[in-house]
């Protein structure tokens, strides 16, 4: 699984379906989003940045070194993108990036 969508958090807004560059996300009979083609995901995380309810998590598959961690984003402050990187034990690292600030490298 490349991304996982929590149906309880999904509010059926359709934003993830519209943003996915591979059109890989579909709606179920209750209009809740689900990833229909997980192996076709590029890992761009566009859907995660777009989701208003933090319902989508991104995982690495085990074939490229994933071991149970995941990430999601939030936008707690204006102009900032906040990344939450969680390891398999639930330990969370939060990295806040000001979208107006350039990368150092």
């Amino acid at each position: 699984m490349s991304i996982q969508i929590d149906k309880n958090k999904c509010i059926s807004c359709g934003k993830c379906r519209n943003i996915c560059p591979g059109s890989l996300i579909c709606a179920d009979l209750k209009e809740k989003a689900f990833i229909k083609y997980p192996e076709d995901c590029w890992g761009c995380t566009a859907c995660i940045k777009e989701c208003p309810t933090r319902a989508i998590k991104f995982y690495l598959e085990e074939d490229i070194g994933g071991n149970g961690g995941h990430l999601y984003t939030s936008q707690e402050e204006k102009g900032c993108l906040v990344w939450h990187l969680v390891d398999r034990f639930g330990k969370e690292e939060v990295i806040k990036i000001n979208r107006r600030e350039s990368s150092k490298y």
Partner: protein
Amino acid sequence: MCKSNTYKTDILIIGGGTAGCFCALTLAENSDLKVIIAEKAGIKRSGCLAAGINAINAYINPGETPESFVKYVKKDSEQVIREDLVYSIAKRLNKVTEKVEQLGLPILKDDKGNYVKRGKRSIKINGENIKPILAGAVENQPNITIINKVNITDYIVRDAKVSGACGFSPETGEFITIYAKKTVCATGGAAGLYKPNNPNQSRHKMWYSPFNAGAGYAMGIRAGAEMTSFEMRFIALRCKDTIAPTGTVAQGVKVPQINNKGEEYVHKYGKPNTHIRLYATVQENKSGNGPCYLKTKGITKDQQKELFKAYLNMAPSNTLKWLENNSGPAFENIEIEGTEPYITGGHAGSGYWVDINRKTTLENLYAIGDVAGGSPKKYVTGCFAEGEIAAESIIRELAGPNLCTGPAAKNQGEFMCSHLQQHFDAKYSPYPAEKIEQKLQETMDKYAGGISEYYEYSKNKLDTAKNELQELFNLTNRLKAEDFHELMLIREVIDRLYVAKVLIEHLLARKETRWRCYQENADFPDKDDKNWLRYVNSKYENGEVKIIFRNLIGKDELYEHSN
């Protein structure tokens, strides 16, 4: 038969990526022409820059000039480039960079307000949001109509004149025909031709966008447009597994490439240009000195922290991999490897054969960005420049005596759409498009110089690939689509087959080895300047790829299509 919808416009731009958006914006800001952008996904996050980019890699920093830029590209690309095209891009790089900064792209500046250099020709940015910034600017223009989620499959063409394009919309379930006075191809290049680094669950965790299936090339090939330099494939040197960029570390933190013995190895293989850095790594692995690494162990905690951020801004999986494994580049070196080969004119030289205005050999059709050939290393800013060049040419042409008298071939688009219907009408097919794609990738890997062959190929192997490809072509006619997503997958594999077919002929035609790894001809393993300082071009005619050799074009020459 499905529903259909027809549009008419002045300019149709196929693909709302870097080049397409900038072209549309230039048209809207400098004319009253009506523009349609037909985009396969949604322009806010479509194409190569969906996750972001790490730097502006084509910029003329103080001390450099457009002339020195051309010299650099020529040297790095072993002389076979279109100097005229590269020069026209070089002269615009800084202007388009300022424009995109005005649109909202953050660029790092020093105390005096000058951009901070990353390398000789690159500057530091926050590129995470570049696509939403471009999309926002385009959406604000009343003369631009964006049609998202439409899959363009073919040009409307008669007598080598293009009058729009047709395709379908999985979103609305309609066949779509768009007639236009001028059509601009800006689809991006081709991924998915070769077996990828990680062919299982993570098969799409690749360098180039896996959704760039080479449609722009394939449409041009089928319509008989002249193509150039497909044999100059592009292969990226990337972080193992996540296939994340290495330049951020190598150029940004400035660390060397080392082999398993801790030796710096690149210089052993010649001047360290782009393909030699890759070739050296491949050879070290082949000779038992691998794996190879970027020597990051021992960098400071602050440097590591900034790398975590830099990767989140363009390839977030890399930061996740470090953190979920309780590691980081300060603790362990980064293993590097070459990717599978891609066809793209943004990094290498493959694409449409264009004139200085980016007109293709088909009338009323332009090509810009990764589908336009002859100008390697154009990167993002070069794509902007080409969008601007094409837009200016279109405005000049449509302002003059208007020779376009509406659609050259009425109803032809509707007729072509009916061809798509065959995949819905087909009876059950035992092979889904996915399996044919897999077979194509395995064939190309083994017989056309993929990762498993250290990128080397020979005539005997290419002949095998040709036969296999023909069998796959035969299977595609009978593929059955249950829905529009499946129709898209079928069209993608057909397009990849066309690109692969042309690629093989180009690989066969260049009887030397011009670019290490990109074009590694085992039958002719040396560079041969006496005979091969020329372009390999091709045209698809009556089901055959016809090879055309052309002489090099210099920086100040004015090239015009003569036929």
